[in-house]
């Protein structure tokens, strides 16, 4: 080996005793120290011996519970409640599934989105049966049914629902020569036929603006008016053989061909930007969507909401509270969930975040019915949405695969929107996607 590199080892001459043992000790101490220090840093939430107990509540998006939880702690000084918020249901669900699969780590109260509830009901053993004479009849029948297993266990307490009206741009309607007053507009939205016909009229005069925001939204609304869109009660998947589903697909894709759609993916950045660019004139809007529109369309004037929905009523969204069997305080957690989903509390949540209550007694409460929304041209949104909730006549049956199938269905619609496939090709892909779901 070449030794041209100068070496200077003056600093290495001093200590010659072996330090191997010392190094080993250091390693051990460091490892042990770290673990011990971290173990100590945990937040103890065990509530044995009658001390105060901590309950955790995991929600996604906005449930409007912040003030309610403070109120609950004031009412129950021996209970501390901590809320874990996640941005979207999808992220919340990934976390929830991971912990269900691992068998521990869930919060004492876990929120479940309506479309995700059927899959949860399949795993009912992982959750506490919340049936209680006190809460019987608290919710709209279909809401309660959606939180109940086939053998009658109540797994989820309903929080909110999403009765849909149609939000529209009155200013653009006016430009297109259509009526713009919300009472005059409502009849145009009576049926899907009239809705689409008006749309064709609209785009004929306003070629730069689409009629509705996203084909995904329209197709979801139409699917939700079918009684058994994708699955039968016995679990048979009929999604690809049900002629009604194919009808929805054909209608939506033909309306796309007629130029009614923005061809944008719902919730995408382009979709958000379209609110500012007069990208479209109407959209399906459940109560919780009002805040979304107001936020995205900041500075845009002319939004209004009509007390009508094509084909009767429709529901989009709404959630449940569940208590996982893993919870160490199932009784306290159940009491908290029951309190949170009582009509009085849900009305407060509605005031805070606009989540429309699913409780029968809340529906005719003045807090709800008197609500007026300034952004939507002072529309009586409380009254309108209340009416829309009554108009919901058909509740689609949602089996455990519902959420996955509708996602595949919406992708099929989007492929046509984006020109990646002809309607027939896209449908074939949908068929094989559904087969893959098993």
């Amino acid at each position, binding site marked *: *080996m*070449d030794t*041209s590199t100068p070496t200077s080892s003056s600093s290495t001459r001093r200590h010659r005793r*072996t330090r*191997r043992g010392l*190094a*080993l000790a250091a*390693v051990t101490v460091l*490892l042990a120290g770290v673990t011990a220090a971290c173990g100590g840093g945990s937040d103890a939430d065990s509530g044995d011996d009658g001390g105060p107990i901590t309950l955790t509540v995991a929600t996604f998006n906005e449930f409007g519970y912040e003030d309610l939880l403070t109120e609950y702690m004031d009412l129950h000084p021996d209970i501390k409640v901590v809320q874990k918020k996640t941005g*979207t249901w*999808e992220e919340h*669900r*990934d976390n929830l*599934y*991971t912990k*269900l*699969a691992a068998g521990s780590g869930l919060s004492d109260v876990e929120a479940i989105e309506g479309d995700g509830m059927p*899959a949860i009901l*399949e*795993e009912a053993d*992982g959750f506490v049966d919340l049936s209680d004479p006190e809460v019987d009849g608290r919710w709209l029948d279909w809401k309660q049914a959606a939180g109940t297993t086939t053998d009658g266990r109540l797994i989820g307490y309903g929080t909110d629902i999403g009765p849909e009206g149609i939000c529209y741009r009155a200013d653009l309607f006016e430009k297109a020569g259509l009526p713009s007053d919300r009472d005059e507009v409502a009849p145009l939205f009576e049926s899907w036929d009239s809705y689409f016909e008006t749309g064709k009229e609209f785009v004929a005069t306003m070629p730069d603006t689409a009629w509705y925001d996203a084909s995904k939204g329209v197709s979801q609304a139409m699917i939700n008016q079918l009684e058994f869109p994708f699955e039968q009660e016995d679990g048979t998947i009929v999604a690809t053989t049900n002629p009604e589903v194919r009808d929805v697909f054909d209608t939506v894709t033909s309306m796309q061909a007629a130029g009614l759609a923005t061809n*944008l*993916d719902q*919730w*995408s*950045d*382009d979709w958000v*930007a*379209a609110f500012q*660019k007069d990208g479209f004139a109407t959209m399906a809007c459940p109560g919780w969507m009002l805040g979304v529109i107001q936020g995205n369309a900041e500075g845009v004037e002319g939004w209004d909401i009509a007390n009508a929905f094509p084909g009767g009523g429709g529901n989009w969204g709404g959630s449940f509270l569940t208590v996982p069997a893993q919870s160490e305080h199932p009784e306290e957690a159940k009491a908290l969930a029951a309190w949170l989903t009582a009509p009085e509390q849900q009305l407060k949540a509605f005031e805070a975040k606009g989540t429309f209550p699913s409780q029968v007694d809340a529906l005719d409460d003045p807090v709800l019915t008197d609500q007026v929304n300034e952004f939507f041209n002072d529309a009586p949104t409380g009254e309108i949405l209340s009416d829309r909730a009554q108009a919901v006549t058909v509740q689609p049956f949602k089996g455990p695969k519902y959420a*996955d199938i509708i*996602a595949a269905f919406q*992708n*099929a619609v*989007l*492929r046509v929107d*984006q*020109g*990646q*496939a002809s309607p027939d090709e896209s449908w074939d*892909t949908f068929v094989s996607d559904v087969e*893959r*779901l*098993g």
Partner: protein
Amino acid sequence: MPSTTQLTWRQRLSRWDVRVSPYLYVAPFFVLFLLVGMFPLLYTGWVSVHDWSLLGGKGDFVGVDNYTKVFGDQYFWVALRNTVSIFLLSSVPQVLLALVVAGLLDNELRGKVLWRMSVLVPFVVAPAAVALIFGNLFGDKYGLVNAVLGVVGIDPVRWHVDTLASHVAIASMVNWRWTGYNALILLASMQAVPRDLYESAALDGAGRVRQFLSVTIPMIRPTLIFVVITSTIGGLQIFTEPRLFDNVGLGGSDRQWQTVTLYLWELGWRIRDLGTASAVAWLLFGFITAFALLNLVLGRRLSHLHGHAHGRGLGRRRR
């Protein structure tokens, strides 16, 4: 003769020191791996040979059925194609650009700290902000990139629709985040290159670029190999960027940018078939390992050769 015993005792101890120390030094990694790495790996393997639903748990033993199922699924191959394509579009330009940036930083710059730190900024930006920013840049209809392209007369690119365009967009997200990071790694080893090598090269009349190619690059080869291998492994496991590219997170309506890890995620968490997802994980693991080993073997050979060159010397490089 006490001094002799003393000496042998010392010698013995010293020999023992030489023999045992290396194992002690590498032990922490392996102990920790046994603790937190091995169990997940074996567990995943165990799951992959069973019918295993994410929520329902373990079912029957099915042998290699899950693996054959994956091989028979056309979407797996689509995902593999996408992964390789995005990987090539990201890793190659990334390593080259990182080399250039590191070469630029390896100068007597004014305000060195500031320059070096600035290239690392993308790495500290929170994921939420990254998704937001790139969403704004690569919008199909109202995005900034398309607006700029429009100014120079190029038709808007459909970033979320066309397969190759989506790969380019995702790769640029990756490159943006990781180039500075790799540049700093390369810079660290460039700094260890003895400056007299440059001086003698300069005496021989080699210009800046020539010095970089014939002195710097050979001298930092081991680190370069490191960068290539880690960016290969990272590139083949790419997850966050394609997941954040739309709000559904499964790789587009036609799976244009669904990578293998996204495919795995879809199988495990959407279809809730943990058995098949685990099979994909093991396949991916095998695939990447093979790839990395190939790299490493090639690299070892190169660095071995390089070691000789280093020993004999400067003469040759001076030629």
